[in-house]
């Protein structure tokens, strides 16, 4: 039961983080686009603002699925892949350092929930 409880606590915690980050990006996509490394701007299929809005929608989708415990392993895998992308695109700085912890959390959720 404790093992089950710790999974659910991690799941809800990671879900809230994804959801809230998605909302904050929607509030100020231009500000968040500043985290994109300059070398990457030429390769983006969309404008930086639109890229950030797409990211916010992805974050909110992953967060919602984790929160309601549906498609949990798929959502945590997408979340982990997304965080790897963020670390590559933004580099590891004082803001993104915590993404390493989130990435570990997503991988734990994936391993726990995959059948």
């Amino acid at each position, binding site marked *: *039961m404790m093992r*089950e*409880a710790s999974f*659910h606590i991690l*799941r*809800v915690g990671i*879900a*809230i983080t994804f*959801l*809230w980050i998605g*909302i*904050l990006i*929607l*509030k100020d996509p231009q500000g968040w686009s500043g985290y994109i490394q300059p070398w990457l701007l030429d390769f983006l299929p969309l404008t930086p603002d639109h890229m950030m809005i797409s990211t916010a929608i992805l974050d909110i989708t992953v967060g919602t699925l984790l*929160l*309601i*415990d549906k498609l949990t392993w798929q959502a945590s895998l997408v979340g982990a892949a997304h965080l790897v992308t963020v670390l590559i695109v933004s580099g590891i700085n004082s803001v993104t350092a915590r993404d390493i912890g989130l990435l570990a959390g997503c991988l734990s959720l994936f391993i726990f929930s995959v059948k």
Partner: protein
Amino acid sequence: MTPHALLFTLAAIGISETTYLIQKRHLGEKPVCPINISDCHKVLESKYNKTFWIHNDVLGLIFYITVAILTSLIVIGIHPVNLLDIIVKLLIYIGVLMSIFFTFLQWRVIQAWCTWCLISALTILLMTVIVLTSSLV
């Protein structure tokens, strides 16, 4: 921003909890009740588990989703922010009144305690404290 973040977090916890209860009910399984198993099921299966023919867990889910969405819209800055703020406050005041009523039912009428119901009541009580101690907009 901080009160909104707290409200959103509490609403998300509420969504997770009510979703769990609804899923268990649909599957015909009994939810895991951390404190007292028999009491929990006595409350969840009592004749008071519905309000106006709608299961209380469904009402709770609708409440939490509405608060989460409205709080998000306020944070993003969708207008009219003031109106949304008033609606959120009203919803939370109605929610806390219903929670007090349900807690009273458990205490005096059903005479059993349900952990999930108490967690939900505490969640809404905390939301009320946040609304009362902060000017949201």
